[in-house]
């Protein structure tokens, strides 16, 4: 199955999907050293986004969150790719400065945690 969306940031990677139906705030919501989600009550609380294809509807919270993605990347704890329903400023800018492939306008409810997927940030596709 190939899901077609919109290319946000370039690069093609394969990885294991980590999926949530909740928004993510990278600043304050994710530990920048380990990549573990620390937001209280979040579906992914306690799980690490490091090395995963992170699938979530849209970003939220402080614009400083863009820098958190950059910091995660430098600590080797960033997701390998990001897939959104609708990408907003924080995640877009974060992916560009951290150079994380990113695709949006994907029907994310068709993706499930644990699936192997290929994200193509040039074509804007997710291959399941």
């Amino acid at each position, binding site marked *: 199955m190939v899901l077609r969306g*919109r290319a*946000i*940031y370039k690069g093609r990677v394969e990885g294991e999907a980590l999926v949530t139906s909740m928004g993510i705030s990278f600043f304050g919501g994710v530990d*920048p050293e380990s990549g573990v989600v620390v937001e209280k009550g979040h579906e992914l609380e306690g799980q690490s986004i490091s090395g995963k294809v992170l699938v979530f509807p849209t970003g939220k919270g*402080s*614009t*400083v969150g*863009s*820098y*958190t993605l*950059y*910091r995660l990347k*430098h600590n080797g704890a960033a997701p390998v790719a990001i897939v959104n329903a609708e*990408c*907003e*400023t*924080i995640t*877009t*800018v974060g992916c*560009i*400065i951290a150079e994380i492939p990113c695709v*949006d306008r994907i029907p994310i409810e068709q993706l499930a945690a644990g699936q192997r997927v290929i994200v193509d940030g040039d074509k804007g596709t997710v291959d399941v």
Partner: protein
Amino acid sequence: MELNFDQLAMLNGEHGPAAQKAMEILDALGEIYGAADMVPVSSVQIAGVSYDNLGEAGLQFLTQMADGGGRARGLTTLNPAGMDVENWESLGIDPGFAENQKQVLEAFARMGVVTTCTCTPYLSGNLPHYREHIAWAESSAVCYANSVIGARTNREGGPSALAAALTGYTPKYGMHLDEHRSPTVTVEVALPPAYTAGAQDMPGEGGLRTMWFGALGKAIGEKLQGSGKKQVPYIKGIGTASLEELKTFCASIATYGGTALFHMPGITPEAALKTPPVMTMRVTQDEIDAAKRSLSAAPSEEVDFVSLGCPHLSIKEIARLAELLDGKRVVKEFWITTARPTKHIADRMGYSAVIEASGARFAVDTCCVVAPIKGRFNALATDSAKACYYASGKNEFQTRLLPFDKVVMEALWEG
């Protein structure tokens, strides 16, 4: 989105890696917000300056951009830093923090950014004119620029404002387009007689009306947030407003409502061009009082930190402060936050000497929202509704919102 020759050259890396990265950011933002093209900007205000917010990652990114040949193409100024750049030690800032903060400012300076660190750039030489396209971060200044000046800017974040500085462009969407600047809701305010212009001249009541504007901003902002969509309010019933009142109102409505633009007939320049929408919400005096009370829970006895200058104090406010503190002695930690150029005027006028003789301290280049003061104090007295929001959320202080003159009395009172 259509890019011109200059923009394409940057995107292709012909102007170096920093300009390329900056153009990638703007290109992507333009795509996701459906911009048809970009517009040149004449003024930029960058947020994300305090090391307390940036952290090591932010500093690394800024250093990388400076190393990559990043150079501001137009007038660019900065938001407050995490400390007084010249006087951090006496304010109890950690030397390690100070070192990192200096590196942040150095990276900006290498990129040709003017390192006046203030949330009121329009008082310190970065003043766009009516209808000018600009790219500003700092929510209170964005609201002031769009509404009071009639310039045009979206609510930029730190990196997107930096990208505009290094390229000289911003994608043309949102607040840059006429159709998004029309009011979406009318807000009716009944101004009580106690708050009509001139009331603030009553003895002991100085700043009463300014504080009321802060409470009003919270009351309206929260109502707009409750509507669940981005609103441009057309606010009736205010009559007149001073620069200081509008400065605090913008800070408050942007903090509590995420508002980028409002219109006030008789006060803001675009109001006369617009028709008030039929959809109307009323803000009652009870709601404004409730907004004030919600920020004033801390009793006087608890207050151990007093601050004025959110947004940064104008020279007029500093003159008033010198008058109130002349010959007095403060008994609480009292920070006066303002911009370096304003402090220079205060020095020349002798205000600074009077204020410092009272034991109050200037915290220039910084403010209580971005300085690393969590855990240092218990309760803050201030005249700013915005300062209360960050004091309670970010720093976990209790708050006591008072008019300007009474904030000063709080600092003088033994308790």
